[in-house]
């Protein structure tokens, strides 16, 4: 990197090798590994730079050339570059993105695979209050305790969104800072909280038979997985390979991949990606 000599020996573009970065959570790291594998399959040298940090960090890294490519999510990316945007559906977001991005950055085609925030309840709670959507939940909101990451209290899609879009003001909010991980799920399944904000790709949803409440008002905007790249720094053929890959990747894949890396005895993101690539006919050179 140029601006930060201490930050690893990352080799930015120009030399033919594509450096794929990732954010500091497992799913991003898996997708980054997948991108790298796809590129290698297409005969392009690629390396990964996992766990760079939050969005501002990895976008900075793309801008300063420490990395060339990083997986991102359409909705949050748009809100980051244009906080005023009110685009909510997948289409709107993808339309708005190219113009909103600063010079030098570009996005490739988005995958249908999506990982967005959701309100989740246990099957038992769903039955008890006959909940299928957030609108249902809103009616009994004052009896419910909602758990989520600390920022959920303040982000537009969080408590303020629930309030403005559904008129839901929960009995209380319990911040749990594990990125919607096992602690949040445990709190939910043990009944410490009634509703939790977790990601739709969380494997526990399936394992624990949790119910994802529908979001008719589009409070949680679309979050399709897409590659954020440095303009003009990807070698020929890279974009094509990535676009083809994006068209293959599904939300289901994400759930499975996430599951494979979590819990005791799980594999690491690199391995999970390798397994997926192999199963889907890529040869990771």
């Amino acid at each position: 990197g140029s601006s930060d000599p201490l930050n690893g020996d990352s080799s930015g573009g120009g030399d033919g090798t594509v450096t794929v970065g990732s954010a500091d959570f497992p799913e991003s790291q898996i997708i980054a590994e997948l991108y790298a594998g796809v590129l290698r399959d297409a005969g392009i040298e690629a390396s990964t730079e996992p766990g760079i940090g939050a969005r501002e960090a990895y976008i900075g890294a793309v801008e300063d050339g420490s990395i060339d490519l990083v997986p991102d999510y359409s909705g949050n990316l748009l809100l980051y570059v244009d906080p005023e945007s009110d685009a909510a559906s997948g289409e709107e977001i993808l339309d708005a993105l190219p113009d909103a991005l600063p010079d030098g950055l570009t996005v490739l085609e988005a995958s249908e695979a999506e990982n967005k925030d959701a309100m989740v309840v246990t099957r038992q709670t769903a039955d008890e209050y006959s909940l299928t959507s957030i609108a249902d939940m809103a009616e009994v909101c004052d009896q419910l305790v909602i758990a989520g990451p600390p920022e959920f209290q303040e982000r537009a899609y969080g408590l303020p969104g629930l309030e403005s879009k559904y008129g839901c003001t929960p009995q209380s909010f319990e911040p749990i800072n594990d990125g919607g991980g096992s602690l949040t799920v445990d709190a939910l399944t043990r009944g410490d909280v009634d509703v939790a904000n977790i990601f739709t790709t969380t494997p526990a949803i399936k394992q624990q038979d949790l119910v994802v409440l529908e979001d008719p008002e589009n409070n949680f905007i679309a979050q399709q997985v897409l590659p954020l790249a440095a303009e003009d720094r990807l070698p020929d053929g890279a974009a094509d390979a990535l676009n083809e890959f994006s068209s293959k990747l599904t939300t289901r894949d994400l759930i499975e991949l996430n599951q494979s890396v979590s819990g005791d005895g799980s594999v690491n993101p690199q391995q999970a990606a390798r397994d997926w690539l192999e199963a889907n006919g890529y040869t990771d050179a």
Partner: protein
Amino acid sequence: MNLLSGMWQWLTDPTNWSGSGAIPARALEHMAYSGIVMVVAIVVAVPLGMLVGHTGRGSGAVIGVAGALRALPTLGLLTLFSLLMGLGLVPPLLALVILAVPPILTATYAGVAEVSPAVRDAAKAQGMTPTQVLTRVEVPLALPVAMGGIRNAALQVIATATVAAYINLGGLGRYLIDGLAVRDYSRMLGSVLLVAVLALATDAVLAALQRAVTSPGLRTTAH
């Protein structure tokens, strides 16, 4: 400057001063966590330090263990305990107790062990039993040093109790973690100021206490 005025705004915003998540409540929570941690740590470390200092046995082990405890990363303990025990008070408080024990233990031990051999010897020669030597000579002489360790531990605990908020608890750390989540620097800075004020106030109280338990004879060096 922008940052400071933001902090000032946050600190003076009346909505931050009343209600369940407001500053007074958070400060109370913070003090409660720290208080519990300190009580537990003192109950564990002081008697152990006294015993080892008095007998001189196991001092090597105590110093070694205290050193190793000191090296344990609080964040690691916190996440590990949370993962193993789930949510609740125990994981963060336990992690903090482990943080607080080494300074108290080593200071207590040092205080007792450093009582001048001549004084110890004289006390024995006057017919004090080992218990009397401990309670009438070693403890009063070690108290100021031990209090130094307690002050030190309290400072660290209050500063580090912010991590209790990292998983899900309250305390002033809440503002830090929440502020961090939404990059609200004014709030983070405000919380830091609150923590520092709390720490300094506590330290001042403990310093007064330390002075009170220090015999005037140990303060004076000349007429």
